[in-house]
């Protein structure tokens, strides 16, 4: 069997490189994105960077994993113990652990972020009018894509603030990793799209020519929308669109700015996955997409890899040995019960590990140049800084 060995992803080198300003952690749901982002943030802070970790997860998981009871829309300092992270003494970037580094964390409040954009772009009266609009309220709190859009927006704000030299972003918990790239533009397109503009046209004299072009269809469109949505909803949308008119350009521009930021030097994408077919399939899509967009991929972080201290003992031999022992123990025996259990467990783990390897190899054969860092499965859930630090230590290449 030909074995593909991917290059090793050196996370320490990435975070030690002062030119790295933004690290975006992407991946499908349930692969440990939030934990990875937090662990990288902590490790970078331990190694002397001024870090802010932006999480977008409504389940407040980062808060839990960072031992905080609450996160809000502004970055809060996260005190972390003085410690020499694994690999530091050897690499010698900043011996003595936290020497000079700092860590902040925040959780995105998408509605508030949206409100702030409105307030920044409209005079107080108009802003109040927009904020009170029922359509705006559902747009800012429940729309698919709003979360991603606001995550991008917040990333842009943090970057402009220049208070941190490294921003680690945990992307929204969507099923598809691609949503993070697509949703903001989809929302932007929607907001200054043809149909939404069509709705305000009747209210504006200048729009007449436009109406004439679309006249045949227009009555039908509004007719159907009224039937389906009700007149009130359409009216809300119309009021909202008129009030927002001056801001429309702004939406696109802001989305474009952040999109450009994602392409700029200093941004690195990390694709997070677990050694499972679905997660790695998503990772593959994402890697291909980043290449298409010319966005810089630093590598793949493969979480929850089972590493076995006794890997030299094969599953088959382990199982055979357990059977030998059981036979010698006989019917009423059991003096070797512990050993039998250990050997059986080992055999099962070896099988699982073989599957993980196979799944990971599928990815590697399709993307042989993507560097990979493996994070061993943690026996317990990561829910404190020590746990995050342990995950961080697994990035050490020493």
């Amino acid at each position, binding site marked *: 069997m030909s074995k593909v060995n991917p290059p090793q992803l050196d996370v320490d080198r990435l975070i030690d490189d002062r030119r790295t300003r933004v690290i975006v952690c992407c991946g*499908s749901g349930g692969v440990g994105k939030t934990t990875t982002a937090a662990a990288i943030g902590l490790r970078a802070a331990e190694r002397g960077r001024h870090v802010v970790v932006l999480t977008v997860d409504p389940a407040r998981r980062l808060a839990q994993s960072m031992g905080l009871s609450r996160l809000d829309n502004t970055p809060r300092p996260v005190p972390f113990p003085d410690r020499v992270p694994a690999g530091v003494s050897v690499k010698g970037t900043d011996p003595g652990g936290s020497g000079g580094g700092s860590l902040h964390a925040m959780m995105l409040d998408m509605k508030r972020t949206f409100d702030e954009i409105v307030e920044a772009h409209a005079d107080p009266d108009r802003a109040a009018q927009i904020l009170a609009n029922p*359509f705006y309220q559902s747009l800012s709190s429940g729309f698919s894509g709003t979360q991603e859009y606001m995550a991008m927006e917040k990333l842009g704000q943090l970057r402009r603030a220049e208070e941190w030299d490294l921003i680690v972003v945990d992307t929204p918990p969507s099923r598809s990793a691609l949503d993070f790239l697509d949703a903001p533009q989809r929302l932007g397109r929607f907001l200054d799209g043809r149909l939404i503009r069509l709705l305000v046209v009747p209210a504006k004299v200048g729009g007449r020519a436009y109406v004439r072009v679309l006249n045949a269809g227009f009555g039908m469109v509004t007719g*159907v929308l009224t039937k389906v949505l009700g007149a009130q909803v359409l009216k809300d949308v119309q009021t909202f669109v008129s009030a927002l008119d001056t801001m429309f350009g702004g939406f696109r521009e802001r989305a474009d700015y952040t999109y450009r930021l994602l392409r700029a030097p200093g941004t690195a994408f990390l694709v997070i996955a677990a050694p499972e077919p679905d997660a790695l399939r998503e990772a593959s899509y994402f890697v291909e997409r980043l290449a298409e967009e010319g966005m810089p991929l630093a590598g793949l972080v493969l979480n929850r890899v089972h590493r076995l201290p006794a890997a030299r003992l094969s599953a088959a031999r382990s199982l055979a040995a357990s059977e030998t022992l059981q036979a010698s123990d006989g019917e009423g025996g059991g003096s070797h019960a512990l050993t039998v259990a250990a050997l059986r467990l080992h055999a*099962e783990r070896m*099988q699982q590990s073989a599957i993980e390897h196979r799944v990971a190899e599928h990815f590697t054969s399709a993307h042989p140049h993507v560097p990979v860092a493996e994070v061993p499965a943690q026996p*317990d859930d990561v829910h404190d800084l020590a746990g995050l630090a342990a995950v961080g230590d697994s990035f050490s290449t020493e």
Partner: protein
Amino acid sequence: MRLHVVTGKGGAGKTTVASALALALASGGKRVLLIEVEGRQGIAQVFDCPPLPYEERKIAVAPATDTQPGGDVNALVADPESALLEYLEMFYNLRHAGKALTKLGVMDFATTIAPGLRDVLLTGKAAEAVRRKKAGKLVYDAVVMDAPPTGRIGRFLNVTSEVSGLARVGPIRNHADTVQKVIHSPETAVHFVTTLEEMPVQEVLDGIAELRELPGGGIQVGGILINMVRPMALPLSQLEKLAAGSVDEHELAIGLKAAGLDDSVRLAGDLAAELTEHAVAAVGQEQQRRRLAEPGQPRYDLPMITDGLDLGGLYRLATALREQGAA
């Protein structure tokens, strides 16, 4: 129970478990419809078949037993745009116009502009299938919906308040009311898929609390489906001791030597490490299991399929569900 709504945290295996449940429910000659609502063709992947259209299609047969015949699992991928189109055809006879409007992007626009509308259209499709009759007989014995993840399930199912911002009268409203009735009926239950890890378990507990507190007496909670359960290497009481203390490496070394393995002392050390890790994990999982008992709902175990999940594995999960009385 006729409408089974399956939710769970991303990564817990929601689609796989929903598929296994559909198979389990189909045994004994039943007809089951499995509905996917998030447009990612997860069901097609689980059943290893080409992408499914917005159209009910037979995708699997449940195995017959000695006493009972097999049954059918049909699948449908429901997307809001097609559901809206179908709805317009049904109520307004807008077939051609509907096609044109789809091309103009109006369907997409309508479902985007009113997020609640998407959910009503999707749950509406399930509600319709549950109630559908042919020649006086129900077409489906059960409908299983692979629903959105736990974080969104309350909003997804809380149809009435979702569309309260929409038309207050008219067919959408009537439609929503009908859907609401079906969702709140004793014939409908929401099942939660989880693994024995802290965060998915927390989401289950939060999700159950949320459904119970919904206006209108809440929505009925069904079972907790514990996925990817690994067998314990030793009885729990023993694992607890191993997790707390240390594994007797000496005893292991003697055993390994007796089994004829080389380098038994070093191997014993390494195997002890593996055993300790397993013990710590097992004890932690047991804690999560106890938390899952709190809501007082029935719990079912689905074994970890270690040799890669294929159709065979899916049938094994279905059998496990049947044997435990989940279907």
